C-alpha cells in the first residue's frame, strides 16, 4: 500500500514551498514544474470529496434501510446536510463539469462520455477562480473526470498521474504524453479499448490484454485475502485500492501550502463493486426494495439480478464510507479540519430498478440524480438540515462566497446556507438535469432527456429518441418518492406549467446555440 504515498520528489518540492511560506510569500509549482508566486491570504482551505456514482437513496445518512454510511452519519452530526440535492446529469461528465463550473450542461457543453467542455470554460471553473490565492490540487482515477480536469490546465497545481498510484496500470497515454492527455487518451482507446468491438489494432490489443491478464491475476492473487471479488478497477486499465488514494490525499493535504483547494474524485462505489473482505455479506438480510415495473428504456435486467447487484453496491458503499471515516479521523488528528471546509458529494447516482442497471441510460430517475451533499464548516458543532432543493451548480458560488470572491455573472448556481452562514435559497427555483449523450455537441438539443424538479414535482421529458419522440413523465415526490405513479395525464395544470418551464428552457438553450 505504499504506492499511494506522496513521492519523494513531490515531498521535497512541497517542503521547499512550505519554508517559503514562512516569508509570507508562497511559490507554487505548476504542472510543468515552473513556480508561481502570490501573497499569502488568511483564507480557509477547501476540500471537495466526490465518491463516484453514489446515490443518496443508498446512504443510511439519508434514511436508507442498510446502514451503509455510519462514518458519514457521524461526520454529518457536525455538518450541514442537504436532503434534496441533485446532480446535473446521470454520468460523470455533466455531473462533474457542472459541479466545477457552476453551470448546467448546456452551458459548459460537457454532456458526452469523453467529451470536452467549451473552450471558454477552461478558464471559467473553480480551479481558475481560486488558483490566484489557493494551492489547487486534484486526484481522480475516473478517466472522464481526468480528461475534464486536464482541460483546466495550469490552474491545477498538483494533479498526480493515476498510473503512479495504482496497484497495476495498463494505460500509457498519460505517462507518455502528459502535454497532450486528451488526444493521446483517445488514440490509445482506438488501438486498445476493451469496451469497443471495432478496434484499429486487434493484434496489439490481443497481445497486450494477455499481459494485462497475467499482471492483474498476479496482483489479485497477492491481495485475494483482502479483496476476494478481485481488485477494484476503473475499467480503463487501472487496478487500485481506495486505501492508497486516501493515503495520498492525506499526505497531500498535510504537506500542501495553505490555503489549499483540493478536489478529490474517488472511483468507488462506481461499478464493479469490489469491497474489502470484511464488507462482503454484511447486508445479507433478505431485505428487498420495492419492485418497479420495467421502463420503456429497460435493459431487461431481472428484479433478482438487480437486487443482488444493489446489495453488492451497498457493500462497496460501506467500504468507501469506512475509508472516508479514516480520512476524516486523520484530518482531525492533524488539525486540518480546524481551518477547512469539507464538502462531501457525488457526481451522479446509480440505478437498480425498472430493468435498468448502473447509470448508462437515457432516464433521469431519482436514484440517478439525487445525490448526497454534506458540508462541514470549520468549528461547526451541530448538525443543520436543509430541505430546500439544491443543485451541484450551487457549489461554485458557495465556495466563492466562503472565500470572499465575487460570483461571476456566468455562474448559474446560488449560494448555499452552511451552518450559521445564512442565505436565502429560492424555494420556487427549478432544478434541472440533462442527459444528451446522443445529441451532437455544441448543436441544438434535439435528442435528449431533461428533468425539472420544482417544489415537490418532477417532470421528465424524453425527446427525439427513436420510438419515443416526445414522452413526458410527472411525479409528485412528496407523496410518491419512488416515482411509481406518473401523474402527467391526471394533473393537467401542473403538467402544463412544468412543461412550459421545460420547453422554455430548451428554447432558450437552442436559441443561444442558433
Amino acid at each position, binding site marked *: 500500500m505504499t504506492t499511494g504515498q506522496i513521492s519523494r520528489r513531490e515531498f521535497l518540492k512541497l517542503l521547499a514551498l512550505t519554508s517559503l511560506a514562512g516569508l509570507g510569500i508562497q511559490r507554487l509549482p505548476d*504542472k*510543468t514544474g515552473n513556480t508561481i508566486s502570490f501573497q499569502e491570504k488568511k483564507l480557509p482551505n477547501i476540500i471537495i470529496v466526490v465518491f463516484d456514482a453514489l446515490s443518496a437513496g443508498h446512504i443510511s445518512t439519508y434514511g436508507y434501510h442498510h446502514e451503509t454510511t455510519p462514518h458519514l452519519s457521524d461526520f454529518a452530526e457536525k455538518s450541514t446536510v442537504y436532503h434534496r440535492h441533485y446532480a446535473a446529469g446521470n454520468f460523470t461528465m455533466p455531473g462533474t463539469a457542472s459541479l466545477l463550473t457552476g453551470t448546467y450542461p448546456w452551458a459548459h457543453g460537457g454532456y*458526452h*462520455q*469523453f*467529451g*470536452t467542455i467549451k*473552450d471558454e470554460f477552461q478558464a471559467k471553473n473553480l480551479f481558475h477562480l481560486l488558483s490566484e490565492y489557493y494551492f489547487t490540487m486534484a486526484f481522480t482515477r475516473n478517466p472522464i473526470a481526468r480528461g475534464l480536469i486536464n482541460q483546466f*490546465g*495550469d490552474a491545477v497545481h498538483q494533479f498526480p498521474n493515476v498510473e503512479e498510484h495504482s496497484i497495476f496500470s495498463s494505460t500509457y*497515454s498519460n505517462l507518455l*504524453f502528459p*502535454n*497532450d492527455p*486528451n*488526444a*493521446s487518451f*483517445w*488514440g*490509445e482507446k*482506438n*488501438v486498445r479499448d*476493451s*469496451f*469497443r*468491438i*471495432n*478496434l*484499429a*489494432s*486487434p*493484434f*496489439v*490489443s*490481443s497481445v497486450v*490484454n*494477455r499481459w*494485462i*491478464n*497475467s499482471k*492483474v491475476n498476479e496482483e489479485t492473487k497477492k491481495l485475494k485475502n483482502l479483496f476476494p471479488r*478481485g481488485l477494484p*478497477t476503473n*475499467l480503463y486499465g487501472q487496478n487500485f485500492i481506495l486505501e492508497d488514494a486516501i493515503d495520498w490525499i492525506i499526505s497531500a493535504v498535510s504537506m500542501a501550502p495553505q490555503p489549499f483547494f483540493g478536489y478529490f474524485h474517488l472511483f468507488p462505489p462506481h461499478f*464493479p463493486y469490489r469491497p474489502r473482505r470484511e464488507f462482503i455479506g454484511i447486508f445479507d438480510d433478505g431485505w428487498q426494495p420495492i419492485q418497479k415495473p420495467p421502463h420503456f428504456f429497460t435493459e431487461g435486467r431481472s428484479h433478482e439480478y438487480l437486487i443482488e447487484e444493489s446489495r453488492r453496491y451497498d457493500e462497496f458503499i460501506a467500504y468507501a464510507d469506512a475509508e472516508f471515516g479514516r480520512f476524516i479521523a486523520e484530518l482531525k488528528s492533524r488539525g486540518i479540519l480546524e481551518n477547512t471546509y469539507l464538502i462531501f458529494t457525488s457526481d451522479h447516482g446509480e440505478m437498480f430498478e425498472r430493468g435498468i442497471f448502473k447509470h448508462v441510460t437515457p432516464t433521469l430517475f431519482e436514484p440517478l440524480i439525487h445525490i448526497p451533499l454534506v458540508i462541514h464548516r470549520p468549528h461547526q458543532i451541530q448538525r443543520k438540515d436543509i430541505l430546500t432543493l439544491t443543485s451541484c451548480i450551487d457549489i461554485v458560488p458557495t465556495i466563492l462566497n466562503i472565500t470572499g470572491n465575487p460570483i461571476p455573472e456566468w455562474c448559474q448556481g446560488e449560494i448555499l446556507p452552511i451552518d450559521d452562514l445564512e442565505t436565502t435559497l429560492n424555494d420556487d427555483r427549478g432544478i434541472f438535469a440533462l442527459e444528451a449523450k446522443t445529441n*451532437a*455537441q455544441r448543436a441544438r438539443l434535439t435528442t435528449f432527456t431533461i428533468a425539472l424538479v420544482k417544489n415537490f414535482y418532477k417532470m421528465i421529458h424524453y425527446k427525439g429518441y427513436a420510438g419515443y419522440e416526445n414522452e413526458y413523465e410527472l411525479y409528485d415526490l412528496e407523496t410518491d418518492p419512488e416515482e411509481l405513479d406518473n401523474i402527467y395525464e391526471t394533473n393537467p395544470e401542473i403538467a402544463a406549467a412544468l412543461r412550459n418551464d421545460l420547453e422554455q428552457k430548451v428554447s432558450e438553450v437552442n436559441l443561444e446555440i442558433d
Partner: protein
Amino acid sequence: MNADLSSLIWVRNRFPEKQSIYNLFIAVVFPVHIWAIIIVLQQVPTYILYLKASETIGTIAYTMAFILLECISITFVFILIGALLPQKLLKQQIVAQAALLVPLALCIAYFIHVLDSISFVMFQTYIPNRFWFGIWIVGFIPLLIVSYLIRKYQRLPELLMKYVDRVTIVSLIYIFGDLLAVLVIIWRNVFVSG
C-alpha cells in the same frame, strides 16, 4: 575465424534480403492500414460530435502512428518466424506468404478481441491465456496449408507478388501518412503544451 564467418553466413541466410524485407513490409502495411483506416473513419463522426477539430486530428495521429509501430512489429515477427522455421516453410516465399497470412492473422486477432471484449464486459476480465494460445495455434494451422499451396502451385506466389506490387504505391502513401502523424504528435507535445 572461418567457423565464425560460416556461422555468420548461416545466420544471415536465415533472414530475407533487403528487397524481400521491403516487400514484406508492404505486404503487412496494406491490410493492416485498410483495417485501421476503416475503423478510424467509422469513429470520425463520433469525434465530430464531441471533440474539437484539433483533438480529432491529434487522435487520428496517435492511432496511425501506433499502426505504423504495429506494422513494424508484425514485419519483425514474420522475419523472426521465418528465421526459426525450416527455410522452405516460410522464408523462401516470405512475401507471398505474408500477403495471405497477414489478413488471416488480422481475422484471428479480431476474433480474439471480440471474445476478450465480451468477457471483459461480462466478467471484467479477458479470456484465459490458454484459450488465447489455443486459438492462435488452431488459427495458424492454415500457415502450413498456405505454405504447402505456395510451394505446390507456382502460379499462386506469382499472383501474390503481383498483388504486393500493385499495392506498393498506396502502401507508401499510408506510410507517408503515418510519418506525418508522428510529426503531428511531436508538434502537439513539444509546441502545443497542455
